């Protein structure tokens, strides 16, 4: 029997962690105890951003990573983060399928294997004021966390401020930032109702986490166990999409319970952001390698993004 130590970056309550726990239970159960996975969530073993290299260098056999972090290594990682490229769960699933062979090759060359992907819920704006259209954003200080959210924020007229997650609460209370663009999950994590009153849901983008495993560790298992893992991963991926969607509804409810006004984005904002997404996609295509563009072109065609 083998035991794998697994690192992940989110608290127990987070649906990603819950889903991983279910995945682990299924693997342990179906492998007849042949493989147990000891999950250390919440950055307690290895910090989220370092988990990819920890798996790649053989420090741990398995871990959960956030794909959007690695956009500087390959633009493919941030494609899902562009607004209105794949703005629904169905489209996000299709995009994932389109990206899969490319990612498989990328991770394979690095000695790793992706077991399953799970989407973050769609995102929205946390503001102190009701959002009637993109004009409301002019000059508002938005906290951003990546190059693509910066580009989006600036195109929307925001004054974008890069801020580490840990500084958000203080920054809100001192007026350094006035708005956030993030998922309901993160909003709950930092208890956004302390600082903002309105959540304007846009959906817009579904960036992904992935559970990755070291090829060496995977190949060392017997074939039956490998099959068990792959089957469980397939189930986990489907479940991730369902859990993410269910969580979104549930979490918007939590925001409401805490007195926030939760609304869908006005048509004018969606239009503006779709237009911005189109612009950003043009830039993305220029920055990405021909192979990357080729890999997702069928998806673009099917969505009329060509």
């Amino acid at each position, binding site marked *: 029997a083998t035991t794998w*130590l697994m690192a992940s970056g989110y*608290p*127990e*309550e987070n649906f990603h962690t819950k889903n991983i726990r279910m995945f682990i239970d299924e693997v342990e159960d179906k492998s007849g105890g042949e493989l147990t996975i000891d999950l*250390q*969530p*919440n*950055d*307690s*073993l*290895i*910090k989220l951003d*370092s988990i990819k*290299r*920890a798996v790649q*260098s*053989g*420090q*741990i056999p398995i871990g959960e990573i956030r794909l959007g972090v690695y956009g500087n290594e390959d633009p493919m990682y941030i494609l899902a983060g562009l607004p209105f490229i794949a703005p629904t769960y169905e489209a996000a699933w299709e995009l994932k399928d389109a990206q899969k062979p490319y990612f498989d090759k990328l991770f394979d060359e690095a000695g790793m294997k992706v077991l399953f992907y799970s989407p973050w819920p769609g995102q929205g704006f946390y503001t102190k004021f009701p959002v009637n259209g993109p004009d409301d954003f002019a000059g508002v200080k938005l906290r951003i966390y990546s190059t693509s959210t910066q580009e989006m924020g600036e195109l929307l007229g925001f004054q974008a401020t890069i*801020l*580490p997650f*840990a*500084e*958000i*609460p*203080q*920054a*809100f*209370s*001192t*007026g*350094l930032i006035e708005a956030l663009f993030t998922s309901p999950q993160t909003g*709950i*994590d*930092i*208890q956004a109702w*302390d*600082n903002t009153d309105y959540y304007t849901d846009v959906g817009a983008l579904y960036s992904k986490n992935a559970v990755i495993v070291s090829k060496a560790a995977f190949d060392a298992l017997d074939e039956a166990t490998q099959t068990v893992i792959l089957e469980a991963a397939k189930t986990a991926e489907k479940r991730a999409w369902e859990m993410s969607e269910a969580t979104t509804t549930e979490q918007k409810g939590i925001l409401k319970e805490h*007195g926030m006004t939760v609304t869908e984005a006005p048509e004018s904002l969606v239009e503006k952001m779709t237009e911005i997404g189109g612009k950003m996609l043009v830039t993305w295509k220029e920055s990405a390698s021909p192979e990357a563009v080729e890999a997702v072109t069928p998806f673009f065609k099917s969505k009329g993004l060509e």
Partner: protein
Amino acid sequence: MAAGVLATILFTVMLILLAGGVWIAVSLGIVGWVALEFFTPAPAGSLLASTVWDSSWNWALTALPLFVWMGEILFRTRLSQDMFLGLSAWLSWLPGRLVHVNIVGCGIMAAVAGSSAVTCATVGRISLPELKARGYDERMILGTLAGSGTLGLLIPPSIMLIVYGVISQQSISRLFMAGVLPGILIIALFMGYVMIWSWLRPELTPADTEKLSLKEKLWRSRYLIPVMLLIIAVLGSIYGGFATPTEAATVGVIGSLILAGFSRSLTPKTFMDTLLGAVRTSCMITFILVTAAFLSMAMGFTGIPRHLATWVDSLHLSPYALLFVLGIFYIILGCFLDGVSMLVLTATVVLPMVKAAGIDLLWFGIFAVIVVEAAQITPPVGFNLFVLQGMSGRDILHITKAAMPFFFLMMLGLVIITLVPQIVTILPQTMMR
């Protein structure tokens, strides 16, 4: 219990290394290495390099060298002397007089800095030589600095509370607010202790030779103006929404450079001296921080903290008994691990246990942070002890002895917030909807 045996082995190795005079940072690294190399299948060397690297370029850490640099600049100019001169006019009626500067100074610094090492190092750099030169009791100087330096964790902003907020899903803004009154409580306990001590042992406080009229006192206060301006600039940059607490450290550096420039005490040579002084202190502290991070990571791999927490869970205690046992448990862990790691490594077991016992998680956050504060001054691994050893040249046991009364005062603070939980909860309840 296998975890207990392993913990004992590692403890013995640590004691031998430390007692033998091996550098503290090196000792922590070696204990981490022993844990990984002999008791887990994980690759120790590779984890050493990557963990040390990851923890060395941490954004939150950048405030440390900058505040230390600020302290160096102030120390090398007349500013810190002037400040004490100005304060002495006003504190002469208070039993213990200028010793209170350590406590109040740390309280103010704690409102700027998020960590205890920064608070302790910045205030200590300025006040330690001044108080010593004025003939104050060394033990009291060191004790108050060690104890009040830990306030950096409780008074917002606080790295500890942010980490706790994220792992326990509690509002960080509320936690920050919840930390204010307990912070003031601990300041009051410390100041009360100093007063009683100085009343009991009057010979240990230097004689007050000056008799100043109110007019003279006010005139003497002009010496406080530069430092007040600096405090206003640093706090103002945070609370005016211009800078994050981490960035405010830079405001402090620029401000103190400007003040030093005005007082004409800034030559290229003194500038270089301040910089090299800052390098030595911050390098010493950071070296310990990064190897301690490696040790904590190694502990995560061995699973010792979790096993011990699970064992506590298996005792099925009543809420008060649980708090008592958890307090003891964290104090023992705190002898070896830094605060953040202690919380993170045990969170998955401890937080559900606390929740199940019906204890308010917001309140428990403050409880945990005070325990973690106390861990900063317990040997062998206590960051404030290291900081003060580096600064004073006194041995760690000497400093530990000086800090002990303040450890017990923090324990008293714990008892008080347990009996009167409103001290923690009233501000977040009344100030937020």
